[in-house]
């Protein structure tokens, strides 16, 4: 499978046929099944899907934080031209933080409750940059200011619990970006936050990454977040990328029947609808994946071939889609 983007600068991150499986006593369960995508420098790629679709696992695999019994059983991950899925734990640890930053759903899990915000920032900065304690602290203060923490000189010496939820997530963003990584993996960064704070944080994330030239993989279940933030979006279903392409294209004119159903089932303010469009059924469990396309039991447009073979991901205008409906069309 080859993915060629229209403008071919060397991709920052290139994921090829990545599969992740879990070894259970019932045998291996494949949670991510052969996904392939590229990420250009500075690009924001949204990964959207239902819980269990494999979107978070993909992010975890890229950061090298996949834990047993999960393992990468096929495929390659290349970052800045270097293959990283085979790197050792120590090399990966150095790469994380310096080159790859991470932001998680719950800011409390990314912050050490026993250290002040400043200590954590200074530690991260000094681990990855040859700076003196003074210089690192200065940099930390300027980062806190940049992420919108009022009175950063005073708040830098406070502990995470002294910050509100939204402020904490701002600190996490500062922490993820303070060593100037070129890639940030943001896993549901706004899910735990209130709607009015969500918008602030998304906006901040977008601005910070633009200013610091970091590319972002934004993992979320919320299509609204993607639509407002991402350049491109990969729609995942049952461990596969069913559709990937520019956000406007995927949102306005989705190709895959799952994406179509997903877009239509999102309630909208002011639509005045009497009924919501629904996709019947639920995403299959990993233990009971149907043959062929995993979506076919729920698909309104399924035909015989869909239950027989898994569709390959083929290029359609601007993106790629994995659906038998488009297999006959010329690329």
């Amino acid at each position, binding site marked *: 499978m080859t993915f060629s983007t229209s403008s071919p600068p060397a991709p920052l991150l290139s994921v090829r046929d990545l599969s992740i499986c879990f070894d259970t*006593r019932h*045998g291996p369960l494949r949670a991510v099944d052969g996904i392939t995508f590229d990420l250009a420098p500075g690009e924001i790629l949204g990964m959207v899907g239902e819980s269990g679709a494999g979107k978070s696992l993909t992010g975890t695999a890229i950061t090298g934080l996949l834990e047993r019994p999960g393992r990468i059983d096929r495929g390659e991950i290349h970052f800045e031209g270097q293959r990283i899925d085979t790197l050792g734990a120590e090399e990966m640890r150095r790469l994380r933080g310096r080159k790859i930053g991470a932001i998680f759903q719950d800011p409390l899990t990314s912050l050490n409750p026993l250290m002040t915000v400043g200590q954590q920032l200074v530690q991260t900065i000094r681990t990855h940059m040859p700076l003196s304690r003074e210089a690192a602290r200065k940099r930390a203060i300027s980062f806190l200011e940049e992420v919108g923490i009022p009175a950063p000189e005073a708040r830098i010496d406070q502990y995470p619990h002294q910050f509100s939820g939204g402020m904490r997530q701002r600190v996490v963003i500062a922490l993820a970006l303070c060593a100037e990584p070129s890639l940030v993996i943001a896993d549901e960064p706004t899910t735990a936050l209130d709607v009015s704070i969500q918008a602030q944080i998304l906006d901040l994330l977008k601005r910070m990454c633009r200013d610091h030239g970091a590319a972002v993989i934004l993992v979320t279940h919320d299509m609204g977040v993607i639509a407002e933030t991402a350049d491109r979006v990969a729609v995942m279903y049952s461990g596969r990328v069913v559709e990937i392409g520019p956000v406007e294209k995927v949102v306005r004119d989705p190709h895959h029947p799952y994406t179509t159903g997903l877009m239509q089932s999102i309630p909208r303010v002011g639509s005045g609808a009497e009924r919501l469009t629904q996709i019947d059924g639920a995403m299959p*469990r990993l*233990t*009971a994946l149907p043959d062929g396309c995993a979506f076919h039991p729920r698909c309104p447009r399924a035909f015989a071939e869909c239950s027989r073979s898994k569709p390959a991901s083929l290029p359609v205008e601007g993106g790629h889609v994995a659906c038998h409906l488009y297999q006959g069309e010329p690329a």
Partner: protein
Amino acid sequence: MTLEVYPQSRLAAVLRSDLFYKFRTSYVTLAAALVTLAIVLAALLAPWIAPHDPFDVSTLSLWDSELPPVWAEGGDPRFLLGTDNQGRDVLSAILYGSRISLAVGFISVAFAMAIGIVIGLVSGYFGGKVDAFFMRIADVMLSFPTILVALLVSGIVRGALPREMHDSAALIVLVFAITVTTWVQYARTVRSSTMVERGREYVYAAQLVGRRPFAILFRHILPNVMGPVLVIATINLAMAILIEATLSFLGVGMPPTNPSLGTLIRVGNEYLFSGVWWVVIFPSLTLVALVLAVNLLGDWLRDALNPKLR
């Protein structure tokens, strides 16, 4: 493979469970289960399988006293593990002794569990003054060493009862002493689990249909807090057997006329240095094997029921 098999029989569910899988795949656990089962069965069937009745004085003969095990020089094939100073068969004494030890263990665990569960459920569910009351009692209980309480209880009972009743009351005293000091663990565990479950929505749903608190406690919450209780119960069974042995060893437990493993060890201990080692070694080995096996089973239960280790 599919998980959607139904209707599901109880047995099938057990055989497919993680619990059983952990059991099946661990040799240590299997061995522990085998040892426990063997000792429990032997103890239960003691009157039928024991070669002699160690309490039937008419069958005892001082000619047979202090005979070594069969394989040692001077051993007698009638007495597999030798005899004690009164000519009692050590093997039979162990079989009967395990019976007493296990009885004390099981009964005291059952009582402690029942008391602890009820107090834990009530404290955790109702909270407030009820909770404060029971938990202060628990705190006080925890600040006394078990052995001390047992000695105290035993002392009081011995003081209160006439001498001829001491021996017959020994079992009850032991069970009481062990129960009194171990219920706290169950109560605390159940209480903290109950406080978590109480705030779960299925409990709200039951409240909304007007179920009485005790129906909610026993029908809804109890099944969901039993996991850790079973782990404690297993480990406490081993502990109760040890406490019993300790008390009997110290002479405040079972009398020599109705000996438990602890009593046998105490009695045998007096002959150890005169070369009659078998009277103390075999009961001790049995005790060690039993306690170790039960503890290993407890470890298996704890690991298998801990979602983090799955």
